[in-house]
């Protein structure tokens, strides 16, 4: 679909297990997202897709496994303390000699992973423009004093220009001064993506970007995702339920069921895969 694809992994999950108490939400998940790809993560409800996102973005600390971003480990963990006894996954002692690495979500965003949320989380008292503007805050060079005394005018102007520019690219320039939450649903989704782009990511995680959209909006969104991916030289990793969208724009697909990866491949392969059909597409008629 695009020309910048390579086989250089941007994001790599290695044997990630996430266990909440006795519940193993993700069991030994390994996957790779390569430079320039659009990779989809699909699976029935409760399969652990969003949990996987949360492990990558630092919201959760996985119980076991490694997450690498551009070849650098950003999360390393192994079962510790009472989790050693409780551990229900496999490969529990694979990393026991590695020093755990944990980062807070803001640190991960600094490194270049931006995300959107399954249930839209815009800053509700702010305008569309301000929402995007907040996304530029993390690359600031000013401290609170230089910002208060307006010694950062140049940077401030650059931030504003960048935010406005992003709004133009996502086609929301005309509603820049509207309250974010007063926008129609589809525009809110786009705004969330614009806000994520404002953090200068190299990897964009989209958590069900088409949730609640009608078929036409979904088609437009697909084009939009491919468009911004090329424009900003991004790699996209997304969770999605709309199969049309997934099959249209993804380069590769991972299928998750009950926390385990059950299949991996191109859209064509996944569509034919009997395991996937059994677990996901075929069994319950809708």
């Amino acid at each position: 679909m695009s020309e910048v694809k390579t086989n250089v992994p941007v994001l790599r999950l290695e044997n990630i297990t996430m266990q909440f108490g006795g519940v193993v939400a993700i069991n030994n998940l390994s996957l790779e997202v390569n430079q320039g790809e659009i990779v989809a993560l699909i699976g029935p409800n409760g399969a652990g897709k969003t949990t996987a996102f949360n492990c990558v973005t630092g919201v959760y600390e996985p119980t076991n496994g490694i997450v690498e971003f551009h070849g650098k480990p950003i999360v390393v963990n192994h079962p510790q303390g009472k989790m050693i006894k409780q551990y229900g996954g496999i490969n529990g002692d694979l990393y026991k000699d590695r020093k755990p690495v944990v980062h807070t979500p803001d640190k991960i965003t600094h490194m270049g992973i931006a995300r959107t949320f399954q249930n839209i989380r815009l800053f509700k008292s702010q305008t569309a423009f301000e929402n995007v503007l907040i996304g530029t805050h993390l690359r600031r060079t000013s401290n609170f004093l230089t910002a208060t005394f307006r010694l950062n005018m140049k940077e401030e102007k650059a931030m504003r220009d960048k935010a406005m520019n992003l709004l133009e690219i996502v086609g929301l320039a005309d509603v820049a001064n509207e309250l974010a939450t007063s926008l129609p649903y589809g525009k809110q989704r786009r705004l969330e993506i614009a806000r994520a782009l404002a953090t200068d990511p190299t990897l964009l995680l989209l958590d069900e970007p088409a949730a609640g959209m009608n078929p036409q909006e979904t088609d437009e969104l697909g084009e939009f995702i491919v468009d911004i991916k090329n424009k900003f030289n991004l790699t996209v990793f997304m969770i999605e339920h709309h199969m049309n969208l997934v099959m249209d724009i993804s380069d590769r697909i991972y299928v998750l069921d009950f926390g385990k990866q059950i299949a991996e491949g191109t859209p064509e392969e996944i569509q034919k895969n009997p395991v996937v059909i059994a677990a996901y597409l075929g069994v319950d008629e809708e």
Partner: protein
Amino acid sequence: MKKGNKRLIISLVFVALLYAAGCLIEHTAGTKSMVVTVLQKGAVYALIAVSMNLLNGFTGLFSLGQAGFMLVGAYSYAILTIPMAKRAAVYQYYNGGWVQFTIGVIPALLVAGIVAALFAALIGMPVLRLKGDYLAIATLGFAEIIRAIVQWDTIGPLTNGSNLLKTYPTLKNIMPGNTVLFTFIVVGVCIGLILLLINSTYGRAFKAIRDDEVAAEAMGINLFRHKQMAFVISSFFAGIGGALLAMYQGSLQANSFKSSMTYEILLIVVIGGMGSVSGSIMASFLFIACSEWWLRFLDAETVLGNFKVPLLAPGFRMVVFSVVIMVVVLFFRKGIMGDRELWELGSRRGAKGGRK
């Protein structure tokens, strides 16, 4: 850009007019008049309310420690400015006290803010990991502890224990006849700085944290650092506000910084509107005018002819206040201004606070 400049000029002219009016009132009505008292105390409370609003309204941290930080500021100011000649008399039970130097009023105000900010930085570290009600309880507890510690006999040579601190420079004797102008200038500069901060990129980050912590963190905003920053800055200005309150009162005792003082300020913030600086300012003048002046009659037993008006007795004012709070919280939850500012009312963005 041009439109923004125009609005800025109008605002500045408006503020200048307010200052002139304050001056004029003091010169015609005299420093001892009720209206001047209201202007002085109202301005001081305005600063404290805005500092609390920075934390509660703009950053979404429900903190009730304001009285504690005011107390720290007030004591820092008083301890550092009592004239050398009078220290022996003030610290008569503690052999003249430990501090044996005096600094100027303005440096002392700054130190008051800085000491309060240092306390905030220290307390913020454990406390800011709490959320919502827990944070409120922890900060409230801190304020009470500070009040107790200040009255502790062992550090009496510093704080004069539970005795009064007095004879430090007050509003009345540093700029005689222009007390309102002095208060307005100090408060104006402080509120101006807070406004600049709120409208900077850091202020936007604060509002983002208030609106949605999870999303703010996903946008790369370090929650703890920004909360700590808001907490420390808010306390800095609360410290200065406390020092101004000490200057207004003329004498200082830890016992007057009770938690009820925090609630008064919280009431002002809520009435003015959480997230509105101009709302807090208006509400504080309104509140002080009511409590010091207009509603005083509620506390006085009144006899009209042969008829003794029922209910009017000392303490009834507080009953009325409580009812006002309930009415505000039940029916005017957004306060006077909501989260808008006075100067935003005419503009398009001004519509953002209103519900449709």
